[in-house]
């Protein structure tokens, strides 16, 4: 286990250098879209509205934090790995090193984890400046970290399966974009019809929004959503490891 984490650090080291070279770029791009969502939906549309007993701005900030954990973690991991695998071919170099598939996957997910955490933290700090309804709890940290890991592993999976840059864009349009708007980020999933809720609860971002919001607003914590999101996280990780191990990439 210790060796796997150490090897994952070796893999992630390259992405740390990448972050060092592109620090401001990464920082700005991590918070730009959540900030726009906050302005457009939080202030533009939601001003004066309450949702489930709290001001809409307080309701939406945990949702945007969840959304940021999805978009920043997924896109940064998927884009970089996709480029490394299909264009630079430098992912092949990793595969030729004496590293376990698990350490490669963990290491490659680090960039997404970092960017997701930075984005979600910044948006949350900003939210705490505009509303007093938000709390920082241990479960909030656990929920955000778990979300970032889950969507990083999903990003690795998308990049490993992609045949071209276009197929990555298709994956984002078909899977990520609908999740962004529908999975309880901007509204409560409970408000949707029952048949649609069934679809929404089959998607990981719904559970991510649910646990981050409950932890942030100090509501009753939905443990089942935590377990489901954890199951998604493990499933994505196992699929990634299989893809690398079986060289089905």
């Amino acid at each position, binding site marked *: 286990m210790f060796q796997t984490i150490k090897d994952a650090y070796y893999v992630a080291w*390259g992405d740390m250098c990448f972050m060092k070279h592109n620090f401001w770029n990464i920082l700005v791009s991590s918070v730009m879209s959540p900030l726009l969502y906050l302005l457009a939906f939080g202030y533009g549309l939601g001003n004066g509205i309450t949702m489930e007993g709290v001001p809409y701005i307080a309701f939406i900030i945990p949702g945007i934090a969840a959304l940021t954990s999805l978009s920043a973690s997924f896109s940064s991991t998927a884009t970089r790995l996709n480029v490394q695998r299909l264009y630079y071919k430098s992912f092949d170099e990793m595969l030729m090193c*004496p590293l*376990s598939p698990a350490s490669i996957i963990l290491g490659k997910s680090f960039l997404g984890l970092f960017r997701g955490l930075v984005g979600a933290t910044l948006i949350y700090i900003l939210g705490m400046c505009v509303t007093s309804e938000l709390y920082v709890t241990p479960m909030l940290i656990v929920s955000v970290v778990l979300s970032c890991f889950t969507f990083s592993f999903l990003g690795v999976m998308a990049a490993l399966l992609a045949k071209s840059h276009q197929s990555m864009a298709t994956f984002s349009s078909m899977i990520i974009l609908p999740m962004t708007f529908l999975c309880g980020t901007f509204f409560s999933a409970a408000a949707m019809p029952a048949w649609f809720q069934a679809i929404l609860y089959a998607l990981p971002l719904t559970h991510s929004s649910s646990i981050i919001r409950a932890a942030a607003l100090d509501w009753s914590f939905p443990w089942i959503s935590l377990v489901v999101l954890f199951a998604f996280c493990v499933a994505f990780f196992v699929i990634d490891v299989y893809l690398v191990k079986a060289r089905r990439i």
Partner: protein
Amino acid sequence: MSLFLCGSHRRYDILTNNDNKLWMYNPIDLLNGEKMVESIIEMTDVVKKYGDKAAINGLTMAVRKGELFGFLGPNGAGKTTTIRVISTLTDFSEGTVKVAGIDIKKDPRNAKDHMGVIQQAISLDKDLTIRENMMHHAMMHKVPADERKKRIQELSDFIGLDEYLDRMVDSLSGGWKKKAAIVCALVHKPDILFLDEPTVGLDVKARRLLWDLIKKLNEEGTTIFLTSHYIEEIELLCDRVGIIDLGKLIALGTPQELCNKVGSTAVEYRENEETKYKYFTDRDQAKDFVSVLDDHDQIVIRNTNLEDCFVELTGKSVGGR
């Protein structure tokens, strides 16, 4: 046509060329032959299929420790797939591959310690500097922390890369990128270095510098596995040459041995507006043949080269179909 004859302890691959001459060689002899030379790569009956198409079709071959081995073949013959299979990048369906005595299917991580690979396309991380790429390779190959910087400096001095170390990969010319890829592949001191068409796209000067570097590495004890479809490159550098076509090894030996098999003297002549080639075991036979030809103006008598050997063997030109 290729036919395997299996005996109690030997197996011969009998090949027929276009003239139906029988050639015999035994790749396994490299392991069991008179010289008992230690082999560093052993491939036995390896098959790799993409769908129904076999990219490698029963490849049996051994590479000796310390040699500069050339792997020659036309585009799509299976050269790159062979390297990808040996370096564990691509899985294979049948056969066994051993590197430094280690079965790569049973213990891939240990086998990888012995290999460095320079792929056909530059496979460095272009978002990092050369130094960062080297350090990253050293870390992933688990070079001890206190040796990494020293090793990078040594290699940089060895290749003369010092002034480029802190430059981004994309700011370098093709030749320097290739050299940077080589130092990255050498950072963990591999026993065997695979070079997949390393001089493609390089100018003449860069190509010659790279040839010198390859020779230098080999002289220092690194086994080199070099693929190319530049015939002169293989002929100039390699101790032994394997020719692959349609995923099968069709000839193996020193460049001279391969040429002798065809005939050491070649006659090039024009007939019916077509250039034709004829091969003879000595110059006297070639001269006898020439004396009966009509048009003496366009006749060349020369030593047979590997390209002649390749064409004679497969009926195809090197580098294309």
